[in-house]
């Protein structure tokens, strides 16, 4: 076998392409971009309601009123601008990469705010001086563009890798801090702008999201995020416990109201389902376009065993038992739907699963066997009740008053944890490796003695069981189960969640589900365009970031351009590990 040398990229790559001519001015451009961003921060934005909300309160020339008191998106811009200037002048590794991330963030914040000001504040007239002006947004936008141009002109370095080791206890303490910050960040993102549909909720949320996203991207560019990830891997169990604790503490933050608990529980249902789908699509590489049917089957099973008036079976069972039964029945259907994988592959398999999904929807619509309620749905499903407590009520533990929905939230967190444990164990087991082998090259896997048939069906079965589990929860939480919740579009949305997050990864599926179900909640003023934007977003993701937000380290760059640094780094790591194992 011949080995081919892979030339290591130099620390500072030669700038190439259209911007190469600007390389000598890269630093100037970067500093200028940062300065313009800071200047934009202090310019008036507009006299519109946006400025009265939680994010910037005032519309005057901020510099003269509260030079140090900027808040909201002004604060984000100020921080980004200063950070960009510092980075441009200091000797920091991968500064081009970080500045690019900041620049993109500045552009996003400026565009969101500028558009909202223009859109909500009387059209293009809002950009005239007389009306109080959105040119702060425009100046910052120019600053952001300069930052990106300057970053690209100077060359984008590869992401640095840090190998610091600290005292284990210091590392653990650090992880606590990281998790707490993460918790507060999640709560802040979730609640920013308030409930969707009210005032400028959408704009404030998007602006904040852009800021958080850019900050995380910059951290990731610096390699610190990868270092923290390595840290969590060194303290695996500890980190998992911390995250679980943090998730259970969310109700104590600003997000601890009934509304947010309900939103979080709904996200949880889809996140759990997405993880299940991730086994089928992400690990085994079998595209399932009818997956939401299993969520539906689980939900209908639970509805029929719940004692709801519309259920014709007339048996009422306790919830934990119902969950198990729902999972088993969904799993049986999963095996049936999966059985064509013995003969069908690729695109054709996707169509087979789609056909099964459609058969499910049609049958449910026609109230098959009197089990689905047809177009009347199955309403009035009683809430989960354990130890005399209905889960839809608030609870008081000592002096602590927890909002209604809290118990459901805890329940779904536990369900997701269980699902994650299943997924993680499977992924790194013999079975998981077999799935991945099948995904990479089915014929080769078979040639190596993997019995591909049963293993593929098992992927469908397990994925369907997880969805069935989530479905049982879903039925009780919503109180109504209708076939309309399990149509083709929902399957596509779940698939999009898995892809958006990053196929084959747990955080990816959760993140993808969160994004896809929080965004519509927050952007109610666009609800008319929700699906239109969703469709366009799907096309754009496939075009520009097919590997998702969190690319899988162990996944071959099937969907990604080979130049993605994260994937290249991950592949090299995997290759190094494999070498280490052999020797």
């Amino acid at each position, binding site marked *: 076998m011949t080995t081919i040398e892979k030339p290591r990229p130099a620390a500072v790559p030669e700038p190439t392409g259209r911007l190469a001519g600007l390389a000598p001015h890269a630093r100037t451009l970067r500093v200028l971009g940062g300065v313009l961003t800071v200047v934009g921060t202090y310019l008036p934005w507009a006299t519109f309601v946006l400025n009265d909300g939680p994010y910037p309160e005032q519309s005057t020339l901020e510099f003269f009123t509260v030079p140090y008191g900027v808040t909201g998106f002004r604060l984000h811009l100020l921080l980004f601008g200063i950070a960009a200037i510092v980075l441009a002048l200091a000797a920091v590794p991968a500064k081009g990469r970080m500045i690019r991330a900041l620049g993109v963030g500045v552009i996003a914040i400026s565009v969101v705010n500028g558009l909202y000001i223009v859109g909500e504040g009387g059209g293009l007239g809002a950009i005239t001086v007389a009306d109080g002006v959105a040119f702060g947004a425009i100046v910052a936008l120019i600053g952001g563009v300069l930052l990106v141009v300057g970053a690209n002109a100077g060359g984008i370095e590869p992401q640095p890798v840090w190998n610091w080791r600290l005292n284990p206890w210091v590392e653990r303490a650090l992880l606590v801090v990281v998790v707490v910050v993460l918790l507060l960040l999640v709560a802040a993102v979730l609640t920013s702008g308030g409930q969707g549909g009210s005032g400028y909720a959408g704009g404030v949320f998007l602006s904040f999201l852009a800021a958080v996203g850019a900050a995380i991207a910059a951290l990731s560019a610096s390699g610190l995020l990868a270092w923290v990830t390595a840290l969590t891997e060194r303290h695996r169990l500890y980190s998992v416990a911390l995250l679980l604790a943090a998730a259970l503490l969310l109700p104590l933050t600003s997000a601890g109201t009934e509304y947010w608990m309900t939103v979080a529980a709904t996200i949880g249902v889809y996140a759990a389902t997405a993880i299940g789908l991730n086994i089928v699509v992400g690990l085994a590489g079998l595209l399932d376009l009818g997956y939401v049917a299993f969520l539906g089957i689980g939900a209908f099973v639970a509805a029929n065993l719940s004692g709801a008036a519309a259920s014709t079976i007339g048996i009422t069972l306790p919830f934990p038992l119902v969950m198990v039964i729902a999972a088993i029945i969904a799993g049986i259907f999963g095996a049936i739907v999966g059985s064509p994988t013995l003969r*069908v592959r690729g695109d*054709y398999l996707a*169509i*087979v699963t789609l*056909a099964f999904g459609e058969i499910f929807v049609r049958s449910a619509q026609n109230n098959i066997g009197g089990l689905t309620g047809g177009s009347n749905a199955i309403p009035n499903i009683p809430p989960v009740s354990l130890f005399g407590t209905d889960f839809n009520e608030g609870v008081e533990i000592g002096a602590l008053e927890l909002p209604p929905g809290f118990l459901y939230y805890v329940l779904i967190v536990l369900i997701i944890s269980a699902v994650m444990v299943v997924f993680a164990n499977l992924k790194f087991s013999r079975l998981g490796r077999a799935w991945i082998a099948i995904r990479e090259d089915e014929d080769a896997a078979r040639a190596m003695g993997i019995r591909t048939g049963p293993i593929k069906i098992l992927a469908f079965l397990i994925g369907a069981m997880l969805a069935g589990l989530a479905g049982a929860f879903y039925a009780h939480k919503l109180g109504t189960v209708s076939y309309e919740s399990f149509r083709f579009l929902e399957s*596509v949305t779940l698939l999009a969640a898995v892809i958006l997050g990053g196929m084959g990864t747990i955080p990816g599926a959760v993140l993808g589900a969160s994004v896809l179900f929080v965004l519509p909640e927050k952007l109610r003023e666009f609800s008319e365009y929700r699906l239109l934007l969703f*469709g366009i977003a799907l*096309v754009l993701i*496939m*075009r520009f970031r097919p590997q998702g937000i969190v690319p899988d380290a162990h996944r071959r760059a099937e969907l990604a351009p080979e130049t993605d640094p994260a994937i290249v780094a991950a592949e090299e790591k995997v290759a190094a590990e494999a070498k280490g194992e052999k020797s």
Partner: protein
Amino acid sequence: MLSTFLSQVVNGLILGSLIGLIALGYTMVYGIIQLINFAHGEIFMVGSYGGLAMFTYLLPTAIQNQWWFALPLLLIAGAAIAVVVAVLMERFAYRPLRNAPRLAPLITALGVSVALQEAVRVFYPNATAAVPFPKVFVEGTLAIPIGDGIVPIRYTGMLIIVVSLLLAFALNTFVNNSRMGRAMRATSQDRDVARLMGINPDRVIVLTFVLGAALAGVAGILYGADLGLININIGLQNGLFAFTAAVLGGIGNIKGAVAGGLVIGLVKTLGGQYLPGGTPYDYVWIFVVLIAVLVFRPQGFFGETERVRA
């Protein structure tokens, strides 16, 4: 009852020839770039709405009532709009992914499908509900007495069958005998070597989309004229049927797509009539056929001969 059976056969053939017309687009695109162009059903829907828009907003009332004039205009408008949308879709959604792994274009196709359907729902006046479509052809039915009953045949139904078969025949002739048709077949068999012959694959692929979209646009108009009512869901639904038809006929096979369409039409009407569950379950039977074909005979029922694809 023989007359009931024959009526359902007639209905099945009418629906089937429409589905066959849509299936041609699926089959050709798959033949050339191995893409299940999920959005093709929406192209059919867009063609239907596009023709309706032209009719409603551009045609003077005097002409609206002259079917022999209005119908050809509608067909051309429907085809033209379908073609424009399809070309844009190919250029901006699919072409950038030409060399991407196969999952990516399939998901893109799903995205395009959702976006097109929603674009019509949001931007076409009153498209949230079904909208009436002009019956731009001779209305009424031809009643043929058979046994102790009658078999009604709608005139629009006859139109659909005749137009569909003519177009399918024309397409088949084009692909098999023209220079561009040869280029299409060459591109589908070996794209690199086709380039060495001086064939520009991009142009061939665009041509494929154009032909498929034009046929789908025509189908959209015929569909509306026959039923007198269209809604934004007709694309997904009939698109799935058409895809089934294309698979049934052996994907890449032009004659097969038409034959597959006719079979699907018959399965729907006869299944709804005679199988348990009745009409509410007629869709289910089509999907059962789809699964059965994919599992047991994925190459379709027309074998390997005369195929467009590699």
